[in-house]
C-alpha cells in the first residue's frame, strides 16, 4: 500500500480532458517530481492532490484514506506556491502560525513549533517583518516554513524556485534536498526545469499533454527514456535524435547514418533484441546523448562497445569545463560534449568516439522505444 496513491485520475474542464488516467504510487518519504512543458497539467494534478481542484475520475488516497471529497485543510497536506502566497497583512510569524491557529492548536504549542521551524530555516530574525519587507529568497524560506510547521503527511511544491535568480535557485535547490534528507517527509514537487527534476527527485514523472510519459528514477528517465519526448525533454543539451536505418553488418546489427559529406557510416548496436531485429532494413531514430560522443581519450573506459566515427566538425563552443562540438549526421545537427581540451577544430576532420552502450532506438512513427 503506497502512501500517496494517484489511481487512474482524470481531469476535465467541461468536455476537454486535460489529464488522462494518471496512475502514480508514491511511497512514504519519496521525493516525486512532476516535470513537463508548460500546460501539460502538472499544477492541475498537484491542485487535485491538495483538494483545490475536484477530481473528474479515479481516486486519490493519502495515508490509506481516499481523499476525493475531503476538504484541503483536512487532508493533512501543506503547499508551497510559486508566488509564495504569503498573507501581505500578517507578519512572518503570523503567516507561519495561521494554519495552526485555524486548526485550533493552542498558542504555546504554536509558538514552540514556530521557534523550531524558524531555527531550522534560519529565519528567526525575520519573524516580526511583513512579507513586503523580505527579499525573494527570504519569502521563499518563509513559504517553506509555513508548510513545515504544519507537520503534514505530504508536502506539495508548485514551482517554488522559479521566481528566484539563477544563483539563489541553485542554493535553495540544495537546501530543499538537504531538508528532505533530514526530515524524510513525502514530497510532490512540480517544476518545468529538468535539472531540478534530476537533482531533487527520488522518482520523476515526466508529463506531456496530460499523459504521464514515464515514471522512474532520474537515472532510468535519463538513460532509458520510454519515448522520444522524454529523451528530448530531459537533459541539456538534449539527446541527439538522428534518423538511421537498421542494417545487418557482419552478422551483427548496426545503425546506418550518413556523415557530413553524405557517406554512409555504420555504428554497431549494443542491444539487438527482437524489437530491433523487427526493424531490420527499416527507418528508425537513433538517440545518443551528447556526453556519449567524445574524443578517444574522453571515452568511458568501461563501455563495451565504443565505435569510431570520422566526421567534419561544424562548430566548437568552449563552455569552461566542457567543449560542445557540433557536426552534421544524417542531415541533422548533432552535439558532442567533450573535455575542455579536446582537439576538435571547426572545419577539420575529427575521429569521434561513440559509446553505443548508451545509444537508444525509437520508432519514427510511434516515437516509442524499440530496443527495450
Amino acid at each position, binding site marked *: 500500500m503506497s502512501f500517496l496513491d494517484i489511481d487512474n485520475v482524470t481531469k476535465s474542464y467541461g468536455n476537454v480532458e486535460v489529464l488522462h488516467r494518471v496512475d502514480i504510487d508514491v511511497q512514504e518519504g519519496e521525493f516525486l517530481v512532476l516535470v513537463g512543458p508548460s500546460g501539460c497539467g502538472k499544477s492541475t494534478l498537484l491542485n487535485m492532490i491538495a483538494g483545490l481542484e475536484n477530481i473528474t475520475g479515479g481516486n486519490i488516497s493519502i495515508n490509506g484514506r481516499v481523499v476525493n471529497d475531503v476538504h484541503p*485543510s483536512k487532508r493533512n497536506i501543506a503547499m508551497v506556491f510559486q508566488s509564495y502566497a504569503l498573507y501581505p497583512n500578517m507578519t512572518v510569524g503570523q503567516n507561519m502560525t495561521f494554519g495552526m491557529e485555524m*486548526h485550533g492548536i493552542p498558542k504555546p504549542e504554536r509558538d514552540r513549533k514556530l521557534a523550531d521551524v524558524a531555527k531550522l530555516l534560519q529565519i528567526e530574525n525575520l519573524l516580526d517583518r511583513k512579507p513586503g519587507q523580505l527579499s525573494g529568497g527570504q519569502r521563499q524560506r518563509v513559504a517553506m516554513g509555513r508548510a513545515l510547521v504544519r507537520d503534514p503527511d505530504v508536502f506539495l511544491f508548485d514551482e517554488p524556485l522559479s521566481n528566484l535568480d539563477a544563483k539563489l535557485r541553485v542554493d535553495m535547490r540544495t537546501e530543499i534536498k538537504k531538508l528532505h534528507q533530514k526530515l524524510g517527509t513525502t514530497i510532490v514537487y512540480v517544476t518545468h526545469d529538468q535539472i531540478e527534476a534530476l537533482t531533487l527527485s527520488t522518482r520523476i514523472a515526466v508529463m506531456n499533454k496530460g499523459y504521464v510519459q514515464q515514471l522512474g528514477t532520474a537515472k532510468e528517465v535519463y538513460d532509458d527514456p520510454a519515448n522520444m519526448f522524454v529523451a528530448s525533454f530531459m537533459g541539456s543539451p538534449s539527446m541527439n535524435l538522428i534518423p538511421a536505418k537498421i542494417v545487418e553488418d557482419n552478422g551483427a546489427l548496426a545503425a546506418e547514418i550518413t556523415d557530413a559529406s553524405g557517406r554512409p557510416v555504420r555504428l554497431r548496436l549494443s542491444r539487438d533484441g527482437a524489437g530491433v531485429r523487427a526493424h531490420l532494413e527499416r527507418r528508425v531514430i537513433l538517440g545518443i546523448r551528447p556526453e556519449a560522443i567524445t574524443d578517444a581519450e574522453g571515452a568511458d573506459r568501461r563501455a563495451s562497445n565504443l565505435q569510431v566515427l570520422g566526421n567534419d566538425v561544424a562548430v566548437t563552443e568552449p563552455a569552461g569545463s566542457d567543449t560542445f562540438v557540433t557536426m552534421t549526421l544524417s542531415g541533422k545537427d548533432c552535439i558532442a560534449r567533450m573535455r575542455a581540451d579536446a582537439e576538435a577544430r571547426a572545419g577539420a576532420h575529427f575521429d569521434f568516439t561513440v559509446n553505443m552502450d548508451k545509444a537508444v532506438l525509437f520508432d519514427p512513427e510511434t516515437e516509442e522505444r524499440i530496443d527495450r
Partner: protein
Amino acid sequence: MAIATQDTAVRTGRITRTFIYVVLIFFALFYLLPFFIMVINSVKPLSEITSGNMLALPQDPTFAPWASAWSTAQIGVEATGLKPYFLNSILMVVPAVAISTALGALNGYILTKWRFRGDTILFGLMLFSCFIPFQIVLIPMARILGELGLSGSLPGLILVHVVYGIGFSTLYFRNYYAAFPTELVKSAMIDGAGFFRIFWRIMLPVSGPIAVVCIIWQFTNIWNDFLFGVSFAGLSAQPMTVALNNLVQSSTGVKEYNVHFAGAILAALPTLFVYIVAGRYFVRGLMAGSVKG
C-alpha cells in the same frame, strides 16, 4: 543643430507648461467662484444683498443667517431650521453606506474568489443598476416599499439606497479583488480558514484603498440624492436635500438669500469634509485597482 533642437524642446516644454497652468487656474477659479460667492453672501445681512452687489465683500459680517438656517428657518410648514433634517440625512447615509459597501465587498469576494456557473452574467446584471436611470425604478420601488410596510420611513429610504448602491460597490470591489492573487485564498483554504474567515482575515485587511473609494462614492451619492428622498421619505424622514429645497421654496415673505446660502453650504459640508479627510486615499485607491502591486 543638436543644440538648436534641444533649445526648441526646452522652449516648447515651457510654453506647454504655462498653458497647462493657465487652464488649470482658470478651472480652479471657475469652480471656486460660486463657492466664494456663497460664503460671502451667507455672512451678510439680507439688506446688503438686496441693496447692492452680490460680489462685494460683507460690510457688516454676521453669523445670524447660519444660525437661522440651522435652527429657526421656516422649512415647509414648520420653523425648525435644517437641524432635524441634517440628522435624518446622517441616520440615512451612515447605514446605507455601511451596508452597501459591506455587501459590495462580499459580492466582489464571491465573484472573484468563489467563481460559479453564470457568475459573469450575474455580475453583468448587477452592473445594470449602475446605468438604469433613477426615474425608471421609482414606481416599482414605491410598490415594493409598500409591500414591505416601509413606505415613507427612514429604513425604507435606506433600503432604496442600499439596493441602488450595490451595483457600484460590487463593481469597485470585484475589480479590486480580481487583481488579488487567488493563490492566497487557496493557501488560506489549505490552512483551514473557511469562507468568512478568509474574507475577514485575508481579504478585508488589504481592502482599505478600495473601501475608501467606495465609501466616498456612496456617501456623496446618497447624501446628495434628492429624487429618492422626495419620492420615498415621509415628512419625518426627509433628508437634508429635500429640506434645503423646501427652505428655498417655502419662504412666504421676503426671500432670505443669506439664509439660503448658509443652508446650501451646510448641506454641502459633510461631503466636503469626507473629501478632505479621505481624498488622498480616493486617488490612491482608484490607482490601486488598475496598477497591481
